[in-house]
């Protein structure tokens, strides 16, 4: 089959699903809506597989399937076709998006079965899928931007899905506006690149910039990539724009799994992997990205330790894991970044869906203090969640171990890396192990802390099957990236498959430092840290439940600050939003009403005053007119004579 046709089908299927469910949005039938939407997602997944196998048949250096459907914008030198490209990078993305996406659609059929508006939900979900595919397949920055804003829009609609709750609607708005701040930066980045290099096409930029950067000043490039990074901090929830993601948990849980864990939030990482050849020419930007990523990872993990809402813990965990991915991007480990993007998509989608299953079973309860002992009631959810837990805390041979350790190693050894970056990453890893173990212990283990009236039950197969598949992927997904020092550790699985796959299309920095022994010992340290931190969490939350409270009390204000998310939301509200609203009211009152309008009235009064004067002059008396005439003659004479 013609690859253009496959790409078209891949894109159109979810769009048709959206239209089908969108037109009948009033329907209450979750099965029909879900079947159509899941079918659309599955169709796209099949198309992605076909494209993958097509690529596989081609020689590694020229694995590109491109197509252009029509010219979108053609003005001056700006030529933007509706063009899409499938290569090693985007094929991985579309496999994740449609694969994990299909599973989440399937899960939603069960999860949303009692909802009032399932058709509307599935319509939005399909629309999201379409936009996400546009984002990763676009062959130029502007098409990516179309998807970029499109996924933001769907995120807005889905976060505020239960809109009768004002807080949920507000969370949706917060997400969109925060993303818009990033998008404004993204736009400026596009402008600079376009005016400096005359193109917005990825392939053109990748060919042109390394050549031009050699001989010209790299200022515009650094600036452009920094602005693009602002865009990424919005979409991928990095400091300082991460604040929307925890609130985004207001949406239905499968949405959190798909959009706010597995796919949309990784768009920023994807963007820089796609532009790796451009980014490596801007080392300053790379440094900024690495440090912002590392700090975001650390800060978010610390907040994660203190939260009680199961979804919020996972949300901060996502922010933290995205920080790892940016750390990887920043040190030039592009394949490691995308590798972690993939394994994270598996295990985090798994855990979000698992939390959905828990919330479903607990009748919408999300506070882990009111859970405990769910292992007995939800055996499948527990077992799969366990896999996700082992994956994220980095226990070999689960997926997260390979991807996270690759990042930590590169953070240490890359020419852009440093031991400080590694240290921040390693501390974060320990924190991750702690808060995830805490989550496991409080939710699934120990004794039950919920009331007698709650009868948790395992979810239906439409929900457990996706969990099982993702659980499986959370184990084997990592085997695609076995480090070379551990080559042969798993019989029959070669090392570095993933890296090898991406090699022809990602930029490479020079040789790093540090040998196999260092790598092995760092690996050992991080596994040991994870083990220790988990052990500590075991003690705190299973054996001596008083301990965390005592520690929290001991830390006092520090604990309060972390628990309250460092008061960042409060700061933004008090220092930005509130003054903006009050200032705008003042503008309206003082400039529009009290200044401009008053000035207008004054001018009006002046005119009518003048008119009144003229009226008294024209009084119709002959004597007066004679007087004016005489005066006029005098004036004219004076002027003429002088």
């Amino acid at each position, binding site marked *: 089959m013609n690859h253009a046709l496959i790409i078209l089908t891949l894109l159109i299927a979810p769009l048709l699903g959206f239209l089908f469910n969108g037109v009948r949005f009033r329907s209450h039938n979750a099965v029909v809506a879900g079947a159509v939407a899941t079918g659309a997602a599955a169709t796209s997944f099949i198309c992605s597989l076909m494209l993958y196998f097509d690529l596989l048949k081609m020689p590694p250096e020229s694995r590109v399937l491109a197509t252009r459907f029509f010219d979108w914008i053609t003005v001056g030198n700006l030529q933007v076709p509706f063009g899409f490209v499938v290569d090693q990078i985007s094929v991985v993305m579309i496999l994740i998006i449609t694969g994990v996406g299909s599973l989440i659609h399937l899960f939603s059929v069960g999860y949303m079965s009692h909802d009032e508006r399932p058709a509307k939900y599935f319509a939005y979900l399909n629309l999201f899928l379409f936009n996400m595919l546009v984002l990763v397949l676009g062959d130029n920055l502007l098409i990516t931007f179309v998807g970029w804003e499109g996924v933001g829009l769907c995120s807005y609609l889905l976060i505020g899905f239960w*809109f009768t709750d004002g807080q949920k*609607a507000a969370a949706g708005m917060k997400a969109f506006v925060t993303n*818009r701040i990033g998008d404004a930066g993204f736009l400026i980045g596009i402008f600079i690149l376009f005016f400096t290099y005359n193109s917005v096409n990825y392939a053109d930029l990748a060919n042109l910039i390394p050549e031009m950067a050699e001989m010209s000043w790299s200022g515009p490039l650094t600036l452009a990539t920094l602005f693009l990074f602002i865009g990424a901090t919005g979409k991928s929830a990095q400091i300082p724009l991460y604040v929307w993601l925890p609130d985004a948990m207001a949406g239905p849980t499968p949405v959190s799994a798909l959009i706010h864990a597995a796919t949309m939030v990784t768009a920023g990482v994807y963007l820089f992997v796609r532009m790796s050849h451009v980014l490596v020419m801007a080392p300053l930007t790379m440094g900024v990205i690495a440090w912002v990523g590392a700090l975001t990872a650390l800060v978010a993990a610390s907040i994660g330790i203190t939260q009680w809402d199961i979804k919020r813990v996972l949300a901060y965990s996502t922010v933290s894991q995205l920080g790892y991915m940016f750390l990887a991007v920043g040190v030039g480990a592009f394949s490691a970044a995308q590798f972690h993007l993939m394994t994270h998509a598996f295990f985090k989608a798994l855990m979000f869906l698992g939390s959905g299953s828990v919330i479903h079973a607990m009748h919408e309860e999300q506070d882990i203090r009111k859970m405990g002992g769910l292992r007995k009631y939800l055996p499948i959810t527990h077992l799969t969640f366990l896999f996700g837990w082992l994956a994220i805390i980095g226990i070999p041979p689960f997926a997260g171990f390979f991807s996270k350790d690759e990042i930590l190693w590169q953070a240490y050894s890359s020419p852009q890396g440093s031991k400080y970056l590694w240290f921040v990453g390693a501390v974060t890893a320990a924190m991750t192990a702690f808060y995830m173990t805490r989550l496991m212990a409080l939710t699934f283990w120990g004794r039950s802390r919920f009331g007698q009236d709650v009868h948790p039950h395992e979810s239906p197969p439409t929900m457990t099957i996706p969990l099982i598949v993702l659980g499986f992927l959370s184990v084997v997904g990592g085997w695609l990236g076995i480090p070379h020092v551990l080559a042969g550790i798993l019989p029959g699985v070669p090392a570095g498959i993933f890296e090898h796959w991406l090699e022809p299309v990602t930029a490479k920095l020079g040789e790093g430092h540090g040998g196999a022994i260092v790598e092995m010992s760092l690996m050992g340290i991080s596994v040991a840290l994870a083990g220790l931190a988990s052990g500590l969490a075991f003690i705190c939350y299973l054996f001596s439940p008083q301990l965390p409270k005592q520690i929290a009390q001991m830390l006092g204000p520090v604990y309060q600050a972390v628990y309250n998310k460092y008061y960042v939301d409060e700061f933004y509200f008090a220092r930005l939003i509130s003054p903006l609203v009050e200032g705008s009211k003042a503008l309206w009152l003082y400039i529009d009403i009290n200044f401009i309008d008053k000035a207008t009235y004054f001018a009006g009064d002046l005119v009518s005053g003048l008119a009144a004067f003229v009226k008294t002059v024209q009084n119709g008396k002959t004597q007066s007119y004679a007087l004016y005439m005489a005066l006029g003659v005098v004036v004219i004479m004076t002027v003429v004579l002088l």
Partner: protein
Amino acid sequence: MFLSLLIFLPLVFALVLALVPERWVRPSALLLSVLHFLFSCVLFYRFDPQKATLQLVEHASWVPTFGINYFVGVDGISFWLVLLSTFLTPLVVLGSWRSITSRVRAFHLAIFVLLTSTLGTFLAMDAILFYVFFETSLIPMYFLIGVWGGPRRLYANMKFFIYTMAGSLFMLLAIIALIFMTQEQSGTMSASILDFYHLQIPFVGNTFLSTQTLLFFAFSLAFAIKVPMFPFHTWLPDAHVEAPTPGSVILAAVMLKMGTYGFMRFVLPMFPAAVESWSWLFLLLGVVGIIYGALVAMVQPDLKKLVAYSSVSHMGYVMLGLFAFNIYGATGALYQMLNHGVSTGALFLLVGMIYEKTHTRQIGDYGGLAKVAPLFTIAFLLVTFSSIAVPLTNGFIGEFLILLGTFQSHQVFGGLAVLGVILGAVYMLWAVKRVFFGAEGKVIREHHGEGFDIGARELCVLTPFVILIFWMGLFPNDFLNWSKSSVENFVQHRGHYELNLEE
């Protein structure tokens, strides 16, 4: 004869409407306006988009002593504005089916007279003729607001009238000065805009008191008030709030464009040196307008006033694009004029539709409307997306090109204007949140929300807007190709602009 027919047919229609029985007024007005729109579509056959010339020209002597003629023609710049005017009229007639209850006949007469004057303004190529049409348009609008308007209509009307008249006075003086100048320079008096382009207007830098600068400001003032540009915008919110829905739609969608069109037809090509040295002022006011309009829109308690202030912000983009003076800015500005006509026109219609049922426009009275009026909500959201320039809607193309163009010529202004992208989302989505989402507000509790959703007639009114929003967003070339040659000519011949007649 085609353009003259296009311009004056509405007047004939007005006569017809004056004679038909009362209950036939609405249907005949609808039928005639649809016919007129279809007739205007003949332009697609008669107009050659490959040429940057003035086409379908008609010429007749009017006041030969002063070189004033009846002179009309169309080029790629006026092409879409003409079609926008004819496209909106049937929708306005259909949209006012229920909201206008008194003096129905007179109302439709005013609408058709207004159509003639707007078409005349966009097509006139003689400055005096332009001025006559430009000013005539005030009269039907004055009646629309004064007769069918809200409680403070007299105040609003006065403000609207005085503001615009004051501006036009300066323009008339400037036109007269230019006519005399044609005599000085070529021996014969002419009020033809094409002849004005050939004038060598003396310019001295670094002073306000040079002929070209004075003329430049005289025209600019008239058009800046019309646009309206900050700080001449305060008549607009009042006029909009008091105007009946159809009045607001035409005012925003068509009449504001007379201002920006005036900049494109007169100011930018005629006074290149003055434009060069004063463009910073207009870029600055454009950026201030974008940000200021958005901020003030954000805190409006009245939904219609919010939309009115959003116009100030959107028109700021148009001004920015025009004064960026490159292909991206000019194309974007022209596109944004159409976008604003579509999206703001639709927004005013939507606000009118809900007002008809609830009799309040206070955002605070609403809340939870989405639950009882889902179709209305969908329509409002779609138009909102266009208004905040989400890609694949028309708004994005215009805003992106304008920002791109501004960034090319003035990075600082371009960078500041990008803030408008954020603020636009803030004021619209905040309003959407308060009106449609959250708990049930006062209005819904009182009326139980029955019958708030839109019906078949309203759906017919809104559907064309929604189609255009996505058509213009997905296939902008379908639209831009008709203006491309003219806009390129406009940008490339900066300083020695020339518009030739079609042979």
